[in-house]
């Protein structure tokens, strides 16, 4: 069954690029929802059926780490998997994201081929 995806990134350009990359990769997904930061994402997750979240880390209002922490405190959504897509590559911050439940990370910039390779098995 096709999975619904939530993209969280403060850049609308980046959301469009990721969305396009998913389509180009021929992945079988359902709806693609978008949020500009962690706060918007939490609201959306409470109201829509989302199967996987692709999230940036550096964002205003609520960043990706804060989002993971807050999501983990909400029983209704805490088990939805989150994959990080960010310019952040340091072991410390990616390690913290994984400790908070992130299932993996993809570095920006990325090619469509990399998106297909990394996200294909998840979607």
């Amino acid at each position, binding site marked *: 069954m096709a999975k619904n995806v939530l993209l969280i990134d*403060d*850049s*609308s*350009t*980046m959301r*469009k*690029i990721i969305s*396009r990359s998913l389509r180009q990769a021929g992945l079988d997904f359902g709806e693609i929802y978008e949020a500009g930061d962690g706060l918007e994402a939490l609201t959306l997750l409470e109201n829509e059926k989302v199967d996987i979240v692709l999230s940036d880390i*550096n*964002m*205003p209002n609520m960043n990706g780490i804060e989002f993971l922490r807050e999501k983990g405190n909400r029983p209704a959504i805490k088990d939805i998997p989150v994959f990080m897509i*960010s*310019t*952040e*590559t*340091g072991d410390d911050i990616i390690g913290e994201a994984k400790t908070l439940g992130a299932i993996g990370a993809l*570095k*920006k*910039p*990325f*090619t469509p081929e990399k998106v297909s390779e990394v996200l294909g098995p998840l979607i």
Partner: protein
Amino acid sequence: MEVEQFLVDATLEVFSSMIPIDIAPEPAECAALAVEPDVSSLIGLAGDLTGVLIVHCPAPVALSITSAMLGLEATTLDEDVRDALGEVANMVAGGLKVSLAEKGKKIELAIATTCIGKAIRTGGLAGAARTAVTFATPSGRFWVALCYILK
């Protein structure tokens, strides 16, 4: 430390991965040529290197970069251009962060800000070093600059 080369490598990686436009860094003497920017994206850096990274673009280059990123023709300097150039600055700064980390220098990135207009003057930190790299594209030149203090 070869900070200028880090900027070149980071910018080339961003374009080769995500922006299908041919770019080429120009020799250092070309960097002295005035680039009249219409769009400037700035991102603050803190940590072992403190300062600001700026991507300056004239309008035709900003529009071509935005068009290439979005896969549609951008014709005016609007919110899409502001957002796209901000993301370019963010990713170049991310590449710089990786290169510095390999040298044992740790930095943090702020959120990028993009200004549209010609009457922009950026003030630097007292005692900061400055470096800039000019890149040629089919639409003209753009410029990646770094004003910084390295601990």
